């Protein structure tokens, strides 16, 4: 009896101790400010940290912090000098001469030279690159000779990238490309140390990685965590305030939110993680100073297969587009601060002076039920039909896509009496079918590759591999090639607006909304932002208390 009592008391004490310590540690670690540590979640393991090989946002998020290109993009989407302190552009807009900072260093202390860039860019274009050719090498095809070398028909010697001395890099382009400077801030143009030829697997572990960015990777536990610390040899070391950036790898939106709420994360949500969509509204109320919505330069849209009857008929396509209540979708279905879209180019993309979308209004069409009904009737009559045959709206398996598709199909049914089915497909299957034009109406999404409207306008040329609608218009192609040849900002915007109107008026695509990025961030974190294309940038972040 006595013994039992003792055991009972002991357990009680243990449990109490647990409760007390548990509570204490919970409230102490509310923010990473104590250790000056920024903690953020990645929904998956970065498949690679070799800038020439990366293709996904998780990899880019880490790469952007540990490498730096010739230019960087600031919070407002403007190009700023990075490893290049300045550059000159020739009169014809085709030749760029970059001057590399004399104080730029790799994290092993070696100076960064123009030769490193020549080496790295040619490496990214190398068709024999191991373990595989770069998937994003085509982002370098603007450089003279690049495409020929990359596709095996030209020599590396004809690629017009030349380091004339340690600090001067001369690059010649095929055509003037006004967004080339913006492109230089993307991973494919980042430098890698020349010693990588001895160890092509350098980017697979923290201890073999030689990088040149604001941060250095100090730890990489597969599928578990990544730790970054400021690089002591970075030229702007004093601008880097976080003592540590820690990534966890949790692929569950509820768990991520729970981590944030228990003070294990300083940033939760998109683009690297996720928050439960159904809790957006309550989170906004609960954390008014922490819940953030940032418009993102990406478009959510539906493709119409214009090669298949009856969708060959423009009026029928138009009827489908005009009968969708986009505001209802963003306000009642997606709930993440998305903006109804009536154009192709999202906000956040530069125009002449301001954002393109502010300079060129996207009022190409308006939702109009009466007109939609009338157009449908006319279109059907033209096709010799009495009613629209049942068709399917296909999307890749995803809760949000499903909700949007259900809402749209419902609107078509109620507004036009049209019978459409929704069909979800596994990602790979979906992409295959879409590329093979084996669909009727399909979901699509597009994000900016660089800060210029042509990143979107260029999609619908007849040669584009991402057109997928069957839309082919010589006038459109001509406009796009005129844009490509021009260096005059105002003229380019005018031409692009003309092209945009043309593709939207053809109703080959149904724009639904412009994306937004939703996240929670602790209120004392400053200088961390989501950029125009939806990447989270934390390299210049700091904690408020520390700055005072």
């Amino acid at each position: 009896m006595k013994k039992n009592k003792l055991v009972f008391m002991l357990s009680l004490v243990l449990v109490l101790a647990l409760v007390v310590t548990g509570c204490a540690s919970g409230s102490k670690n509310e923010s990473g400010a104590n250790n000056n540590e920024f903690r953020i979640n990645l929904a998956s393991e970065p498949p690679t940290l070799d800038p020439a090989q990366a293709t996904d946002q998780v990899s880019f998020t880490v790469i952007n912090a540990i490498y730096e290109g010739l230019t960087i993009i600031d919070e407002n989407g403007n190009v700023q000098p990075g490893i290049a302190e300045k550059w000159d552009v020739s009169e014809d807009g085709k030749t760029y001469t970059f001057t590399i900072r004399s104080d730029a260093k790799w994290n092993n202390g070696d100076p960064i030279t123009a030769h490193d860039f020549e080496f790295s860019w040619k490496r990214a274009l190398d068709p024999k690159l191991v373990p595989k050719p770069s998937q994003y090498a085509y982002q370098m095809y603007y450089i003279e000779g690049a495409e020929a070398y990359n596709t095996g028909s030209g020599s590396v010697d004809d690629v017009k990238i030349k380091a004339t001395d340690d600090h001067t890099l001369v690059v010649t382009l095929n055509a003037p490309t006004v967004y080339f400077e913006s492109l230089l801030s993307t991973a494919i143009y980042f430098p890698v140390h020349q010693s990588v030829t001895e160890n092509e697997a350098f980017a697979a572990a923290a201890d073999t990685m030689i990088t040149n960015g604001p941060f250095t990777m100090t730890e990489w536990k597969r599928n578990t965590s990544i730790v970054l610390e400021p690089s002591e040899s970075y030229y702007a070391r004093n601008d880097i305030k976080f003592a540590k950036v820690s990534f966890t790898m949790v692929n569950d939106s509820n768990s991520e939110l729970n981590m944030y709420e228990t003070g294990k994360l300083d940033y939760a949500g998109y683009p690297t993680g996720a928050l439960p969509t159904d809790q957006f509204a309550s989170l906004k109320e609960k954390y008014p100073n922490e819940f953030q919505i940032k418009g993102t330069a990406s478009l959510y849209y539906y493709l119409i297969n214009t090669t298949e009857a009856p969708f060959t008929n423009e009026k029928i396509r138009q009827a489908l587009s005009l009968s969708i209540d986009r505001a209802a979708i963003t306000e009642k279905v997606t709930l993440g601060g998305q903006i109804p879209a009536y154009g192709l180019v999202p906000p956040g993309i530069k125009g002449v002076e301001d954002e393109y979308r502010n300079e060129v209004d996207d009022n190409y069409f308006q939702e109009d039920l009466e007109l939609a009904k009338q157009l449908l009737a006319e279109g059907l009559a033209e096709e010799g039909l009495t009613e629209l045959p049942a068709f399917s709206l296909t999307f890749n398996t995803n809760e949000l896509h499903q909700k949007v598709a259900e809402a749209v199909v419902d609107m078509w049914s109620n507004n036009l009496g049209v019978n459409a089915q929704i069909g979800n497909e596994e990602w790979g299957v979906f992409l295959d079918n879409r590329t093979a034009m084996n669909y009727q109406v399909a979901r699509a999404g597009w994000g900016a590759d660089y800060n210029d409207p042509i990143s979107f306008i260029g999609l619908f040329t007849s040669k584009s591999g991402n057109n997928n609608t069957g839309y082919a218009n010589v006038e459109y192609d001509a406009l796009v090639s005129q844009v490509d040849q021009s260096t005059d900002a105002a003229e380019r915007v005018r031409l692009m607006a003309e092209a945009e109107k043309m593709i939207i008026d053809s109703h080959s695509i149904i724009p639904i909304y412009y994306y937004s990025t939703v996240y929670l961030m602790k209120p004392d974190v400053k200088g961390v932002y989501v950029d125009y294309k939806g990447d989270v940038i934390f390299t210049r972040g700091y904690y408020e208390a520390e700055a005072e």
Partner: protein
Amino acid sequence: MVAYIPFFQHDMEVYKQLVRYVIKKILFMLLSLFVLASATFFLMKAIPGNPFQSEKNIPPAIQQMLMERYGFDQPLWKQYITYIGNLLQFDLGTSMKQQYVTVESVIKNGFAYSMQLGVLAILVSIVVGVLLGLVAALNHRKFLDGFTIFIAVLGVSIPNFVVASALQYIFGVQLRWFNVTGLYGPLDYVLPVIALSFLPTAFIARLTRSSMLEVLSADYIKTARSKGLSGRVILVKHALRNAILPVVTYVGPMTANIITGSVIVEQIFGIGGLGKDFVSSITNRDYTLIMGLTLFYAVILMIARLITDVAYGFVDPRIKLTGGKGGS
């Protein structure tokens, strides 16, 4: 039939039988693995898509280079022969998505977590399950019995992701007793292990209870009681030993289930186990990883089956009667 064979000779016979049985099973396993490897290979190749796909299509020339680099431009039978050839040399290859990461190291890293959690969950299930079952049986038709049955029904009917989320919310977010994710210290194992062992514990409790009830009413227990043996001796030496047999046979499939089925629990608690890789490998069309993990899981399942079969042979009442008990 075999009752008159001298004891040692009989024992040899049993072991020979056992060895023959195991060899036969292993050969059969190898054959099954081969069939499985082939079927998975062709099924995987039959699904549309490839490892280099994304929302943004890459130019056909680059796509072509990638296909050539990995030999996907070869006829399927050639790819199959290369694959089987590598397999015979125990070469599972390198992941196509995670660069320079061998399938072997993915398995090593991931399985370490799955294994730790799995073994703990199995131990917890057996100990707690048997104890609960015992308590219930000994308190037959009393409150504790009803209560245990209630818990057991709950355990069997609530899926483990609900259990995991609920545990995380109650003990992680509300009470803050544990970290919500990660495996940083011993305490972090508590919630995932409970979530993983919830169902098997309930199942074992029910198994133990019903077989215990059956055994307790058997004649030999009544005999033992009438001989005046103490309650504890009867319970441990006679009743429990026999009542636990069905539990032993369940341990095999349970082990396989827990170790291979921890996917969702690992996801919720942010544990970098093998389940995570298995699911993503399919979405990514990471062919080498799909094949490697499928085969690995198959081997685990088959070994668990084999152990169960052998254990079953050992605890089979016939062998018990003619062998073990014959001596005493």
